[in-house]
């Protein structure tokens, strides 16, 4: 076992997902603790290696069937990289792709695993803090001296720390053969206009405080900047300003986004029933006594229009 940290890059459709840079940043910090190098495993898409300037080394596997993610062949490729680099910690995203890789690696290479991690530390042993029980508890685990696998929550560290201009050494490992039991067929893009608010990470939800139908635009502009979808309280849907599938609440849908921004929503129990499961609730309301502030994690007693406009501008400038 080396003291290296192996970060498993995640990419699709020709570009890296943010989680790659987030982990690269966290991986470098961890490598500083172990005294090893921060190595990136890049499976398929070796042409993207030049974007990984912050890494100490990049190990690539390329070959037929690796252009698109495939749980079976990518697992096999990762196992080959792990075997050749024998890292102390393997960092994988707690993402759709990462879920396929982390557990399989842990069993096959007999490595301890901590999932859904917010942070990882290395001393004599490796410890990780996992966010579990719907965010209600953080669980710190000791994974022993290593080697081990950690799967990292998206957003657990800033992506900026994982970006850099260096030109890391690149190494290539041969793609191992597989049984071909899993075959990639195609990618299906979501149909435009068909928004499922239960499957969104960020929701900008509007209530009667928005006032008129035309003013929804203000919230839509903010949503666009945040890459969020628009949801609503029932009166907005009742008025026909938004379709029924945007209604959150008792007689609408239950949502559990990472961030729920409630604009001009008073927080009636029927509404709260639908959104209390959101990881972070931010409420903006002119009434400081609005019940929504009882469930919100963050609140702002402000006019929603002022906040929306300022926030949208700030985000555009970034």
């Amino acid at each position, binding site marked *: 076992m080396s003291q290296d940290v192996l970060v498993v890059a995640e990419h699709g459709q020709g570009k890296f997902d943010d989680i790659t840079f987030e982990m690269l940043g966290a991986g470098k910090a961890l490598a500083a603790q172990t005294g090893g190098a921060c190595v990136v495993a890049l499976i398929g898409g070796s042409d993207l290696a030049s974007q990984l300037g912050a890494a100490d080394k990049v190990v690539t596997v390329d070959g037929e069937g690796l252009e698109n993610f495939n749980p079976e062949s990518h697992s096999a490729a990762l196992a080959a990289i792990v075997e050749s680099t024998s890292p102390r910690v393997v960092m994988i995203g707690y993402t759709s792709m990462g879920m396929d890789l982390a557990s399989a690696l842990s069993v096959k290479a007999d490595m301890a695993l901590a999932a859904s991690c917010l942070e990882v530390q290395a001393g004599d042993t490796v410890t990780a803090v996992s966010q579990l029980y719907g965010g209600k508890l953080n669980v710190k685990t000791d994974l022993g001296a290593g080697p081990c696998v950690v799967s990292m929550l998206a957003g657990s560290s800033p992506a900026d720390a994982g970006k850099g201009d260096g030109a890391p050494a690149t190494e290539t490992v041969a793609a191992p053969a597989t049984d071909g039991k899993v075959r990639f067929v195609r990618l299906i893009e979501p149909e435009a206009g068909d928004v499922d608010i239960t499957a969104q990470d960020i929701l900008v939800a509007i209530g*009667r405080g928005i006032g008129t139908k035309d003013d929804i635009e203000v919230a839509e502009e903010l949503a666009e900047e945040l890459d969020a979808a628009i949801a609503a309280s029932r*009166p907005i849907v*009742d008025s026909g300003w938004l379709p029924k599938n945007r209604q959150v609440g*008792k*007689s*609408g849908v239950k949502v559990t986004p990472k961030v729920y921004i409630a604009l001009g929503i008073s927080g*009636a129990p*029927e509404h709260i029933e639908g959104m209390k499961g959101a990881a972070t609730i931010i409420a903006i309301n002119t009434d400081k006594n609005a019940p929504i502030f009882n469930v919100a994690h963050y609140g702002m007693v402000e006019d929603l229009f002022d906040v929306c406009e300022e926030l949208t501008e700030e985000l555009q400038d970034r």
Partner: protein
Amino acid sequence: MTERYNLTVNTGREKDQSFVEKESAVIEGIDVSGRWNRMFVPREIQDYDLTNMHKLTAIPGAESMGWCYQCAQCMPACPVDTAGGDYGPRKIFRRLELGMDLLDSRDLWLCTTCANCLRVCPKEVDMIKIMPVARAAAVLEGNVPAELLEMFQNVAEYGNPMGQSARKRAAWIRKSDAEIRVLPKDPGPVDVLWFVGDFYAYHGRGVDAANAMARVFNALDVDFGVLGADERTDGDSQRLAGEPGLYEELAEHNIEQFKQHEHERIVVSGPHAYNAIKNEYPAMGGEFEVEHYTQFLADQIDELKPLLTGSFGNRKVTFHDPCYLGRHNGEYDAPRDLLEAVPDLDLIEMYRCKEQGYCCGGGGGGMWLDGFAAEQQSERLSENRVKEAVMVGADVLAVCCPYEVSRFEDAVKSTNNDGKLEVLDIIEILDQCMGA
């Protein structure tokens, strides 16, 4: 000697028409032979496939659906039709004739079991019996609107329709400024076992009313206790919405709790619990003395009156009769007696009151079909009702069913009557006027 005629009916289609006549007949000396005594054999006017009608009326409890003779008495009585729902027993019967399968139809879920049609129906077509059994059959087939299904799941898992922690049913008590005895923790005989109910325990506005009730009880020195976290939803709405097994489970649980704590009577916050305990629990082996809180307090009006030292500021108050206190159980006076006892309270009636009271839309499971019903109607029943309260010039809409505060407060907003009409539980009005 039957002959056949061909008659052309006004659809333009030719129809067979049979008749009978006696060749010779003399009645009281008058010769009415031949065509003079001709009688038409009733023409077959029901060329309908009645399979679905028979499927429905074969369900024990749903027989009366077949008795309708289309007199239409029920039509102006049905609140769902009034709210643009294109509904009512007469229409359901007609659609069944035309082949509708009620078990697979939107018509199965719109009835609030308000009993206003039953009040006027000469044939006693009884939606209160038909709906629960028909719905139960549909639930078994898996035909349930999603909102209602979620409620069933919540109740099955947590014992309350909100899906809140069963343990937290008693949470409001810990924060209350009133003195409340929680029987499981502090057992012993009490005069009144207060069945608090879900909305009073869990809904923000219900908790306001629960606190008011506890303060009024304290002021009257009522010897009372509550079941705390051991209480479960009464089950009546689940029964009416088609989940009899769940109802039975809940009733068994509550009956067992009632039997564990010695009490003289049960006082309930809501008409639905009242109906369940009074009319349904006996069949499950639970015979209890039960009163709605307005009845319990109206009986003590002489003790209550001197405590009402505040003023209600001459505000105009109108009262909404809950279907399950009024029409179902015949209580119209107790709530009014209480309101009349409040100093400077101007009680006015809406057009549709007492026996003819208009339904809020929450009964028979309607509370958990809000989105479903709203899509089928031009307005919510609660909105229709709020408009009437505003129309008669009320400042306050007084209610005594825990479902209604949330329904009407919401309807006040959605009909843009914010600030014009306040919705208050009668117990809140009494509490407010107790000075303190």
